[in-house]
């Protein structure tokens, strides 16, 4: 048992913290990033590339740096602290996670170096409106023809789907809508005829898109991984994304907590700092308990995402997400309440952290959904 980071990991974490602090120190900057055409700052993205963050989880053979879940946790925790708007989750964790595992040598050679150097972004067009949080519920079809496949369907709330240079699209090559088998992945240039994207801002200041596929023809070489067998891989990569989301939420929770405690010290009412009032002190103490428990579960997520047994992995990740999301929700509400009116203004940071936490809590399944996964499994997996 060992809770220490390696020297390299510590250096990595410190560098990202400095980078994020520099790029996001003034909250007004974040507004300008959001106003850029892709909804984020290309300059930041280039800095991430220079620091090696964009190639982090890829193998060295593919042109990456061989980082694991702990490294991803460190990156995302710092991004959460800054409310970073760049498409790291979409491109590196989700897109990259699928590509590195399912991609052929050619696909990897074509795309991974470009991702690592910051010249190519990805988005994972998977979720469909009727599916809610069931990853296997896919109605989009990919029909085989002589030249390749023809895709038809609609994908919703695709994170950073409006600006991504390539989409990874899930579609059925076989089976009925809620079958576990028959789902395939395709690499798609969004400029392909029949791809219709509608981009929009999300409530937390990031970007997403609705993606409609109307008779989109792709060559056979667009297939990513084995035909019809993509679901286990999708589940694994979404679990990795959950671990990243837990870390990101943790970073945001800790900043929001500290912001609140500082405010309690500064704001005076009835002739004294409101932090003197015991009822508020106890709420602040509960915020610390909530964030410490969330930290523990973010670490658990980073550990268990490497678990070999997929069933145990999924239950553990659902447990982590359920706890982090529940605590993020409560901590966020307490932070707003303890601040009072100022926290519901757009000018002040706290509300933005609350909004981001609210959206992270619901991403890839809300508390109820993940708790049901744990319940259905009969509880948490026993430790080895």
């Amino acid at each position, binding site marked *: 048992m060992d809770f220490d980071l390696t020297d390299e990991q510590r250096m990595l974490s410190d560098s990202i913290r400095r980078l994020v602090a520099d790029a996001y120190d003034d909250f007004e900057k974040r507004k300008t990033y959001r106003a850029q055409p892709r909804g984020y700052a290309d300059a930041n993205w280039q800095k991430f590339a220079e620091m090696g963050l964009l190639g982090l989880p890829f193998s060295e053979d593919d042109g990456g740096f061989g980082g694991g879940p702990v490294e991803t946790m460190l990156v995302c925790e710092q991004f959460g602290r800054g409310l970073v708007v760049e498409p790291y989750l979409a491109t590196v964790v989700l897109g990259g996670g699928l590509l590195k595992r399912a991609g052929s040598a050619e696909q990897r050679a074509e795309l991974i170096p470009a991702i690592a150097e910051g010249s190519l972004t990805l988005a994972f067009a998977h979720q469909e409106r009727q*599916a809610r949080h069931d990853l296997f519920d896919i109605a989009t079809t990919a029909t085989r023809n002589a030249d390749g496949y023809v895709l038809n369907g609609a994908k919703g709330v695709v994170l950073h789907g409006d600006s991504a240079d390539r989409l990874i699209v899930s579609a059925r090559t076989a089976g009925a809508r809620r079958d576990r088998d028959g789902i395939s992945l395709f690499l798609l240039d969004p400029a392909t005829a029949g791809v219709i994207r509608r981009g*929009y801002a999300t409530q937390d200041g990031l970007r997403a898109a609705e993606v409609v596929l109307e008779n989109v023809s792709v060559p056979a070489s667009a297939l990513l991984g084995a035909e019809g067998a993509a679901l286990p891989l999708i589940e694994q990569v979404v679990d990795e994304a959950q671990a990243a989301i837990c870390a990101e939420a943790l970073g945001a929770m800790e900043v929001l907590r500290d912001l609140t405690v500082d405010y309690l010290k500064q704001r005076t009412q009835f002739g004294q700092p409101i932090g003197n009032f015991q009822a508020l002190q106890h709420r602040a103490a509960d915020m610390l308990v909530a964030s410490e428990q969330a930290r523990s579960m973010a670490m658990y997520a980073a550990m268990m995402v490497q678990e070999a047994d997929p069933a145990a992995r999924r239950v553990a990740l659902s447990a982590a997400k359920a706890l982090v999301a529940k605590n993020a929700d409560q901590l966020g509400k307490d932070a707003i309440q303890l601040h*009072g009116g100022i926290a519901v203004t757009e000018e002040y940071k706290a509300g933005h952290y609350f*909004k981001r936490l609210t959206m992270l809590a619901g991403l890839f399944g809300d508390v109820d959904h993940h708790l049901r996964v744990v319940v259905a499994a009969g509880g948490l997996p026993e430790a080895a």
Partner: protein
Amino acid sequence: MDLRYTPDEIAFRDDLRKFFRSEIPLPIRRKVSEGRALARDDYVTSQRILHAKGLATPNWPVQWGGQDWTPVQRYIYVEELQAAAVPQPLGFNVNMVGPVIATFGSEAQKQRFLPSTANLDIWWAQGFSEPGAGSDLASLKTTARREGEEFIVNGQKTWTTLGQYADWIFCLVRTDSTVKKQAGISFILIDMKTPGITLRPIITIDGGHEVNEVFFDEVRVPAENLVGELNKGWDYAKFLLSNERIGIARIGMTKERLARVKRLAQETPAGEGMVWDDPDFRRRLAWSEIELKALEITQMRVVAAQRGKASDKPDPSSSILKIKGSEIQQASTQLLVDVAGPYAMPRPDRDEEGLNLPSVGPDWADAAAPLFFNYRKVSIYGGSNEIQRNIIAKAFLGL
């Protein structure tokens, strides 16, 4: 003891219900139901329709357009108004400044202001809170110094709701800083067009423009605009705030929202069925309904206990209504977000009416998260729930 309405009360209720639903334009009521921002005209249109029927200012003295209703009738009125998603008559006019002028104002003030206030010909804003005076309202710093027949007002107010539409503002100002803080405050009426007033919008986290800061720089106010006695403003403010009792819990509104949540859940697909088929969602919805039912009866008990009591006495049980009412309101907006699911996330650009261009998800879904964010305020304003617990501990429990 009988919690049911009498036949007369049922008839009264049915009349109101029919009137609200047939006379107030549906597009306005739909915005209320979906929790979207209303335009100025929406408020004015709705209030004038109500006023024409004597339904805008029922709590006022009968000679100024009030109704001689029983507490139960007043309660039914508020519940039905909310249940029909009718915009409430502007609170600053009908629950705040109107009753203060009617009770403490001069005859000239009554003549000048009450009819136009009732008809929303004058739109009032509230100038109480200041940046340094939130829960500790009496520590306010905006001053009014007497110079001849005028007061010169300097300072800043904040959280001025819908101030951007206001013609006039009623303010608490400090007119004596040598006495203890509650004893040096006066209640004064200020025309928003007076030189020296600047209004700055505050954008809230839901993206809405509902509240404002108002700055006063050497603003000259005729002395005749002082309400009641000099330095008695704190008493008038307490009187005014106590008028919030009925309806503070917004039970009718939450009932309407929960019914809507239920309907939307029944028609929103999720996996094999609808959101409605999710037992965890249903369980949380049921708890809200149960808590709301209990609160409804608690409110009826408060109403019944008011019978025969002077209506200007503050009632500490309003703290219970405020705490529970805000909790259930907030829970109801969270349920709405849950129904929207992933489609709570999109925040498309809006046209000038605040509507989608066009909707990304279901046409109601993009309003869910902003409403949820916005409703964090209900446990903060009007005396935060922490302040309410202080009041209960002291006034009820003697701690």
